[in-house]
């Protein structure tokens, strides 16, 4: 039986857990908002961005979505504000802004 893991939480008794804490679903990390861990926030300057896409693959949390060959806005639900994308951008199009808000 595939347990609905969205129904398991920190109040669940041990009998409700899955065997070996196995997760019977894919992409479960999407359900976990790590965006609130952020103390600094990356901001994209659309005018400076050349869509070279060097930033997207280096993001450790896959928070730079790419569609039709173009990067989109940051996924602030999950971005932890590490700033690696700032270092990767050759055009200075990404800057870190203090605080959790973009």
């Amino acid at each position, binding site marked *: *039986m*595939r347990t609905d893991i969205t129904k398991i939480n*920190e109040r*669940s*008794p*041990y*009998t409700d*857990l899955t*065997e*070996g*804490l*196995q*997760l*019977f*679903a*894919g*992409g*479960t990390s999407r359900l976990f908002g790590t965006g609130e861990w952020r103390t600094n926030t990356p901001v994209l300057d659309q005018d400076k961005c050349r869509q070279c896409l060097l930033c997207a693959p280096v993001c450790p949390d896959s928070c730079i979505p790419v569609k039709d060959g173009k990067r989109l806005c940051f996924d602030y639900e999950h971005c932890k504000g590490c700033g690696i994308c700032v270092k990767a951008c050759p055009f200075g199009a990404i800057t870190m802004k203090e605080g959790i808000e973009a």
Partner: protein
Amino acid sequence: MSRENVMKSRAIPERMSGNEAVSFAIRQVNPDVMPAFPITPSTEIPQMVSTFIANGEIDTEFIPVESEHSAMSAAIGAEAAGARTMTATSSAGLALMWEELLLAASNRLPIVLTLVNRTLSGPININCDHSDGMGARDTGWIQIYAENNQEAYDNYIQAFPIAEDPRVHLPVMICQDGFITSHAVENIELLEDAPVKAFVGEYEPEEFLLNPGKPVSVGPYSVSAYAMEAKKAQEAAMERAGEVILEVGECFGKMSGRSYGFFEEYRTEDAEYLMIIMGSAAGTAKAAVDLLREEGHKVGVLKLRVFRPFPEKEIAEAISRSGCRAVAIMDRCESYNGCSGPLGSEIPAGLYRNKVMTQTVNYIYGLAGRDFTVDHVRDIFAELEEVAQGTMKAPNHKYIGLRE
């Protein structure tokens, strides 16, 4: 495994060593994957299985690994992927698997490991004692010990239905004494291939990694809010394993004529003195009991087969039922100033919890292959008699066959 319609098997009389017997069972089960690294005295098992594979008798995928650490890691990966997986090892090999043993159990993977018991170094030595298996007693594996080649074979066939039962999903260690049974040629009654295959059945896990469209994550990091609950759930599965072991043991009897329980009570019905013992030395103890009974001594043997789950209550009941005056608890393992050896501490703890206050004496025997003989058994029963009669103070922890 169908528990209702068990196919009966004809007995095939043969003679072979314990290692050959287990390898023969592996050939009949034809597991999907066997990662293994050779170590004395279990080396013959991967060697013989490799021969079966080379001869096209089975299609098991043999993974030659560079260490036992890798062997158990590969076993975990293969079992999680959905393959029926087994391995074999001894002594230091089991010790090198240590970290992975706990993961196999906590990930609830029904791996079967055949352990050919050998002492853990040092001093370095290749011979039998139970320090390897006992060292792994709290890793969450089911442990079943054999008296001889027949039981090693029978236990091995039962291992898969026990491990893979949805109430259990835990790994199983099938243990036999290194050299004493692994390398001794003795009579055995083998079973026919078809009933064994039907008994073990096809492995059909509900959830496994290589299952397109049904993603699953195995072994995720567990924060403290979940880990303790996971451990309790694992403990509950071990407890449920008890009923499954009994069911499978009974079913095995329908196929083979040999049923199995947690332990065997040998001439215990009216025994005044009992010996609790595990492994090949139980046979020697039984032979001694036969001789002593002829001489008029009321003695018996309780041969422990299942060490994990530990049948605490059942042992206490058996001792209580026999009405015996004193019990010798035999450990083929030293715990260096623990409260006696593993059996010597767990059995009295179980007796205490069940309010059975029979006198016990813990004996340490057979370390690193030291021979254990009929005369030793005689000496122990004579000593128990003295202890019960009050002419001798019960020692807490005594060595047998030691030069003093």
